[in-house]
């Protein structure tokens, strides 16, 4: 059995997206900036995609600019808010401890430029607390950036409440919604979101394309200088095949969202129940306030890379927050942020299921994980120490 259970890393392109991309490459290959008909046809396609995407998140088309993906959108959003803050002497930014590196590394860069950064704790359940956010906001806070849903443990933040609070306190609110767009309903107006990052390859669109929503009135800071594309805010001839495919993928994801989420939630909870039968294991992140497709477990006494390679042999593609899977040999900052110690982060496994997941596949995954965990524990010196009482179990 072959099961792709790493949809948080990337998704397979949908047929609709592939169709749209092919159609664009065959028929709408002109440069949208050219004034003759072939160019203007391409321009029409571009604006059509912008309108479709804007409508799905309740933005207006002028508030959407196309980028190369989530990382670029995150960088541009942060640098924009920082530049605005800098102009008015506001150099304090609030974020959370478990953001994606596209956010955290950009914040580190800003710190070197004199910005002060407060990272809110995300607690054991992987959710920030509004009272802590409120207390952290200062006179000189220029930006709050909190991800909509976490990429490793899938926990969902109270975005509308954060938006409301930031609006009330007059602070720009950006959210990295890369894991959420196409998976959760988003309404930038109702949720008071000022800026939002998205990436097509997380919702069955192509890689290397995404968008940044910036509320009317926020003047974006360029990362890429050059031509006047994207109203002068992002130079470079538009990736039209990617953009039209992204719009097609998002339209489909939005149309099926309710049905898909109901199905994924059912299988997710079934997986969580099945994997909980493994002794000395624990679910990472809140059991309910999480993406419908995300299951993340830690198993005590074993290491994650070994789990992944054994699962791969059984046809299952998954991921782990183990130090041994990162080139830098650091355990996942997300698991550390929810208070997992290194040993427990070590034995972590993330399964992110897709819409086409079946009950049979879930059974096969549970069975395979149980076998793999038992096998690796059978010759783990740490497991021996734990079972012989020389070391105390951390997970019940």
């Amino acid at each position: 059995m072959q099961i792709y259970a790493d949809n948080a890393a990337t998704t397979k392109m949908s047929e609709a997206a592939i169709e749209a991309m092919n159609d664009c490459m065959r028929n709408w290959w002109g440069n949208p900036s050219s004034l003759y008909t072939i160019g203007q046809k391409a321009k029409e396609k571009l604006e059509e995609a912008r309108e479709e995407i804007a409508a799905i998140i309740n933005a207006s088309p002028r508030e959407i600019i196309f980028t190369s993906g989530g990382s670029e959108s995150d960088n541009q959003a942060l640098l924009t808010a920082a530049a605005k803050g800098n102009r008015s002497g506001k150099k304090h930014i609030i974020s959370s401890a478990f953001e994606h590196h596209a956010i955290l590394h950009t914040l580190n860069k800003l710190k070197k430029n004199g910005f002060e950064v407060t990272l809110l704790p995300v607690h054991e359940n992987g959710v920030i607390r509004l009272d802590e956010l409120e207390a952290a906001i200062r006179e000189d806070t220029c930006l709050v950036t909190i991800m909509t849903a976490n990429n490793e443990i899938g926990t969902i933040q109270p975005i509308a409440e954060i938006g409301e609070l930031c609006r009330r306190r007059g602070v720009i609110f950006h959210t990295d919604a890369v894991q959420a767009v196409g998976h959760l309903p988003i309404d930038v107006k109702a949720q008071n979101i000022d800026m939002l990052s998205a990436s097509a390859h997380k919702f069955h669109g192509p890689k290397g394309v995404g968008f940044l929503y910036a509320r009317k009135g926020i003047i974006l800071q360029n990362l890429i200088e050059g031509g006047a594309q994207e109203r002068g805010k992002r130079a470079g001839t538009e990736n039209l095949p990617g953009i039209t495919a992204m719009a097609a993928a998002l339209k489909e994801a939005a149309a099926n969202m309710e049905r898909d989420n109901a199905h994924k939630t059912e299988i997710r909870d079934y997986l969580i129940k099945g994997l909980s039968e493994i002794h000395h294991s624990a679910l990472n992140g809140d059991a309910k306030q999480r993406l419908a497709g995300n299951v993340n477990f830690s198993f005590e006494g074993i290491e994650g890379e070994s789990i992944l390679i054994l699962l791969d042999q059984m046809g299952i593609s998954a991921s782990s927050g183990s130090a041994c899977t990162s080139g830098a040999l650091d355990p996942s900052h997300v698991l550390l942020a929810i208070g997992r110690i290194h040993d427990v982060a070590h034995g972590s496994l993330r399964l992110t299921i897709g819409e086409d997941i079946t009950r049979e596949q879930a059974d096969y995954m549970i069975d395979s994980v149980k076998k793999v965990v038992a096998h690796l524990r059978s010759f783990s010196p740490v497991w021996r120490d734990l079972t012989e009482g020389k070391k105390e179990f951390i997970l019940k």
Partner: protein
Amino acid sequence: MALYSEKVMEHFLQPRNVGVIENADGVGEVGNAKCGDIMKMYLKIDDGIITDVKFETFGCASAIASSSMATELIKGQRVEDAMKLTNQAVAEALDGLPAYKMHCSVLAEEAIRSALEDYQSKNPNG
């Protein structure tokens, strides 16, 4: 999977000499401070010759394959010769390891050395 050589995969999927030796003549346990992995070696030694060796490892595929290969390399060797085992020899026998996984083979070298030293400290006259 192109991440590892076929040899690494073979030793990871079917590790040799897995387990424990009761009343072993030498036991060594080492850990990697960086990624946090742990390796334990058990030796049976008769007349200065390693007649049996078993290991337990908590770590990545490369660490498990390195342990397995290291036990194969020293089985039947004299203690003095086994003392000379290097992590490069382990990695070479595995047809190479990715650069950032070389430290896993160091763990194997250290675990064996530590077990041999344990044996020598209990048998000061060889």
